[in-house]
């Protein structure tokens, strides 16, 4: 967790610096979009028929538990796949559209494991790490609703 932005290229380079067997780095960057989450999806709420402009996004978290949750997620990924290194950075505080929110980068010898682990960490982060988003729109502040699609994405990994 940090308020500051991060350098994606530097983080990815650092991830493989000490690992001569690293042949693959899969990574994900999540960004603040300029329009309303629920509306884009056809809406979990019927009152979001048209995309609302987002002026800013504030990310709240649960200090202490967040670190523990991210460690648990990375640890589970390392048990499931043969990984060389994993980086997770999640920003908190107020962010503007286009700003980076989250980086997950996974180094492995082979790409299949790197891709799977990276997507796994993101899916679990979205459903298990204590972060909450509040959007500022021209109509006022609004807490983002949890998406059923995120629960479904995370549940794939327990069926496998």
């Amino acid at each position, binding site marked *: 967790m940090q308020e500051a932005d991060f350098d994606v290229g530097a983080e990815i380079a650092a991830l493989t610096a000490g690992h001569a067997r690293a042949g693959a780095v899969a990574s994900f960057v999540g960004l603040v979009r300029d329009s309303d989450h629920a509306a884009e999806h056809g809406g979990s709420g019927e009152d979001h028929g048209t995309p609302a402009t987002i002026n800013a996004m504030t990310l709240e978290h*649960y200090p202490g538990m967040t670190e523990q949750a991210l460690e648990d997620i990375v640890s589970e990924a390392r048990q499931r796949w043969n990984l060389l290194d994993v980086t997770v950075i*999640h920003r908190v505080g107020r962010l503007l559209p286009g700003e980076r929110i989250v980086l997950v980068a996974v180094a492995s010898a082979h790409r299949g494991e790197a891709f799977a682990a990276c997507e796994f960490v993101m899916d679990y982060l979205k459903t298990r790490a*204590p972060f909450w988003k509040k959007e500022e729109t021209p109509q006022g502040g609004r807490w983002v*609703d949890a998406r059923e699609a995120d629960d479904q994405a995370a549940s794939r990994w327990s069926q496998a």
Partner: protein
Amino acid sequence: MPIKILYFASLRETLGLGQESLELNATIDSVATLKNHLAARGEPWTALAKMKNLRAAINQRVVNADNAIADGDEVAFFPPVTGG
């Protein structure tokens, strides 16, 4: 030793409170009984009973409603997470 209770996100705003301390007693011994005790305070605390998918953590691990609470625990209530 009292427990510490934390509230996050929309729940924190609804309650107008981020954290408080509470002494346990014989009728408050689990997440479910603590939640009922708090909701019984009336508005705005009924939000704890009304909120669908309310989540709880004890000592920074997510738990179920029937989980026991002990003196000194840190208990947190919050809505489903939406980071990433």
